[in-house]
C-alpha cells in the first residue's frame, strides 16, 4: 500500500515537469518570441519535448530509488524478503521450538510425577485422606477406602478423626501425637485396630494449592506389646503384693504387743520396717493402678450415663475428707438438664476422684472447691474441678500429664501417676482432660466427656 502512494507521489513532479516543458516549448515556438530562433523547426521542438520527458522520468526514478532504500529500513518486513528481522525471527523460531520441546517435556514430567505421587499414595499401607481447605475429601488412597468401607462410611473420614481435624482447622495447627497411647481404636471385622492419627496442613507455593492430609498410622502391634508389658507388670506386682501384705500384717501384730512387749530397740526396728513396708505397698499399688489403667483404658465398658449422679457421688464421697480441713465442696450447674454421656462409670469415677483429691490436697485451709457441669460444645459435657490453691507452676504445666511426673517441691509420697492415668482414661473415652489458664486465682482442671 505504501509503495503505491510512493509511486503516485513521485509521478506528480514528473507530470509537472512534462507540462511545464511542453508549455515552454509552445511559448518559444510562438512568433515574435525572443527565443523563436532557438527552435526554428518542428523537429527541434519535438526533440526538446522528448528530452524533457526522458529527463523527468530519469529524475523521478532516481528520487524513487533514493527514498525506497531509506524507507525499507524502517518498514515492516515483507514475507520472503531477506532482511535483518527475518534473521531474528528465524533465531526466535528456533528458541521457540526449543521452548516448545521443553514445555512438552515438563508436561510429561508433570504427568509422570503426578503418576508417581499417585502410585506412592496408593502404595502407602496406611490410610491417607487428602482434604481441601474446606475440609471436603479430595482424595483417598485404597487403604483409606477399605477402612472407611469397613466402618460403613465409604470415602468419609471417621467421625472421631473428623473432630480432631475440625479442631486443627480451627486452631490452624497440626496434630502429630507421638505416644501410641493417643491412638484411636476402631472395630474392624470384630478386631480392635489402633490408629495413631497424623493430621497436617500442606501448601504448594507453585499452584497456590493448600489443604489438609490425614494419615492414620496403625499402632496395633505397638499397643499389643505395650499391653503385654503392662500385663507382665500387673502379674509381677500381684506376686509382690501378696507376700508384702503378709509381712505387713506380721509387723503390725508385733507392734500391737498384745502378748509380750518389745524392747525399745526392737520397737524402733519393727516400726521402721513397718514404715518401709507401707512405702513399698504404696509403690506397688501405684504400679498396679497404672497397669490396670493401661490395660483397662483399652477395654472400656462404655454405657450411657448421667454426669449429674457422678458429681453427686463424688461430692458425698469426699465430703468428710474436705470437711476435715474446713474445705467446702460446692456443686454448680447440676440442674439435671444436661444430656447423658457415653462413659465407663468405673473409670470415670477414678478420674473424678483423682481430680477432686488433688484439689483437696492443694486447697488452702477453709478453701472452696467447685464441681461445675457445663456444655462447652455440641458433643461434650464438661466437668470442671476448681480450687483456690496456689495452682500449677508454669514450668510444670506442660508436663503434669506425664507418667511419674511430680511438680518440684511436692511434699507428698505419691508417685505422680494420677493425672497420667486420668489422661489415659480420658483418651480412651475419646474425651479430653486439661488445665485451664489461671483466672482470678482459681485453678481449673476439666474433663470433657462425649455425649451419648
Amino acid at each position, binding site marked *: 500500500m505504501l509503495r503505491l502512494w510512493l509511486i503516485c507521489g513521485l509521478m506528480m513532479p514528473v507530470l509537472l515537469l512534462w507540462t511545464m516543458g511542453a508549455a515552454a516549448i509552445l511559448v518559444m515556438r510562438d512568433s515574435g518570441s525572443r527565443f523563436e530562433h532557438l527552435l526554428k523547426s518542428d523537429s527541434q521542438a519535438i526533440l526538446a519535448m522528448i528530452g524533457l520527458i526522458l529527463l523527468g522520468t530519469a529524475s523521478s526514478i532516481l528520487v524513487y530509488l533514493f527514498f525506497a532504500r531509506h524507507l525499507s529500513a524502517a518498514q515492516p518486513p515483507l514475507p520472503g524478503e531477506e532482511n535483518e528481522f527475518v534473521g531474528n525471527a528465524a533465531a526466535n523460531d528456533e528458541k521457540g521450538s526449543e521452548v516448545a520441546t521443553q514445555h512438552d517435556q515438563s508436561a510429561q514430567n508433570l504427568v509422570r510425577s503426578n503418576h508417581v505421587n499417585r502410585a506412592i499414595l496408593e502404595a502407602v499401607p496406611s490410610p491417607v485422606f487428602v482434604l481441601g481447605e474446606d475440609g471436603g475429601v479430595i482424595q483417598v488412597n485404597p487403604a483409606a477406602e477399605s477402612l472407611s468401607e469397613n466402618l460403613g462410611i465409604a470415602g468419609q473420614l471417621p467421625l472421631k478423626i473428623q473432630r480432631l481435624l475440625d479442631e486443627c482447622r480451627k486452631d490452624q495447627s497440626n496434630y502429630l501425637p507421638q505416644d501410641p497411647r493417643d491412638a484411636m481404636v476402631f472395630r474392624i471385622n470384630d478386631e480392635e485396630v489402633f490408629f495413631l492419627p497424623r493430621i497436617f496442613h500442606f501448601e504448594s507455593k507453585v499452584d497456590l494449592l493448600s489443604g489438609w492430609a490425614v494419615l492414620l498410622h496403625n499402632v496395633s502391634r505397638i499397643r499389643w506389646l505395650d499391653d503385654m508389658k503392662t500385663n507382665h507388670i500387673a502379674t509381677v506386682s500381684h506376686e509382690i503384693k501378696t507376700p508384702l501384705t*503378709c509381712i505387713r500384717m506380721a509387723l503390725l501384730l508385733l507392734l500391737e504387743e498384745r502378748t509380750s512387749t518389745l524392747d525399745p530397740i526392737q520397737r524402733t526396728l519393727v516400726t521402721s520396717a513397718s514404715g518401709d513396708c507401707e512405702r513399698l505397698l504404696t509403690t506397688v499399688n501405684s504400679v498396679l493402678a497404672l497397669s490396670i489403667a493401661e490395660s483397662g483404658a483399652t477395654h472400656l465398658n462404655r454405657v450411657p450415663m448421667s454426669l449429674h449422679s457422678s458429681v453427686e457421688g463424688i461430692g458425698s464421697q469426699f465430703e468428710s475428707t474436705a470437711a476435715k480441713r474446713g474445705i467446702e465442696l460446692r456443686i454448680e450447674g447440676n440442674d439435671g438438664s444436661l444430656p447423658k454421656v457415653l462413659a465407663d462409670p468405673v473409670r470415670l469415677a477414678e478420674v473424678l476422684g483423682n481430680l477432686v483429691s488433688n484439689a483437696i490436697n492443694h486447697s488452702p485451709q477453709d478453701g472452696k472447691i467447685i464441681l461445675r457441669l457445663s456444655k462447652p460444645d455440641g458433643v461434650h459435657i464438661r466437668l470442671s474441678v476448681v480450687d483456690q490453691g496456689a495452682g500449677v507452676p508454669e514450668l510444670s504445666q506442660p508436663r503434669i500429664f506425664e507418667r511419674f511426673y511430680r511438680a518440684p517441691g511436692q511434699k507428698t509420697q505419691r508417685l505422680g501417676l494420677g493425672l497420667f492415668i486420668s489422661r489415659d482414661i480420658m483418651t480412651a473415652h475419646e474425651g479430653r482432660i486439661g488445665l485451664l489458664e489461671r483466672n482470678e486465682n482459681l485453678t481449673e482442671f476439666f474433663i470433657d466427656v462425649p455425649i451419648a
Partner: protein
Amino acid sequence: MSRSLENSNASDSAVRNVLVVQNEATLRMGFAYALSNPTTMVETAASGGEALLMMEVNDYDIMILELMMPGMDGINVIETLRTMENRIPVILYTASQHPNASLRAISLGVVDFLTNPTSPADVRRVVDYVIYPPPSPLSQALHAVRTGNMELAIKILANHPSPELKDRVWLRTLKLIPGAGFKGDTGWLEEVVSSDFPSLAFNALPIP
C-alpha cells in the same frame, strides 16, 4: 459380753468360734493371732476343701474366707455351704476388687468384704461388727441380708431417715441383685457394683 447373734450355729458357750480359711501361711497365722483371745477360739484351714471338712465336724460362729485360692475358691465354698443350707456368716477377704465375685457373694448372703491391705484391728472390728451388729440402719439391713431376708434389708434402708452415700449404694445394689425383684440383663450391673465397691467394702465403714 452379751450374745446378740440370733441364728448362731455355735453352741451356747460364751466363747465364739472363728474359722480362718487362708492359703497364705503368714496371713493365716496373723489372722488367728489377731483374733485369739480368752473369748475367741480360732481354727484355721489352708484351703476351701479343708474348710468344708472341718465344717462337717465343728460348729463355727463366723468364717473369714479368702476369695482367691487355688482349687476351690471362696465363692465355691460359699455356694457349697448354701446348698447344704448352712447360713454361717462369712467375711470375704479379697486382695483386689472383683466385682463379679462380690455380686455373686451378695446374692448368697455375704455382705462383709475385707479388702487388702488390712490391719489386725480391722480384722477384729469386722468380726465384732458381724457377730454384734450395731443398731445403725445399715448394720441392721446387712444383718437381714446375712440371715437371707433381702426384702427386710431393702425396707430398712429405704426407710432410712438420713441416708449417707454408703446407705444409698447398698440400697441401690441390693435392689439390683437378681432375686430381689430385678430381672433382665445384668451385664451393666457388674459395672455399677464395680464402681461402688469401695463403698461396699467393710474397710470403707466409719470407725465406730
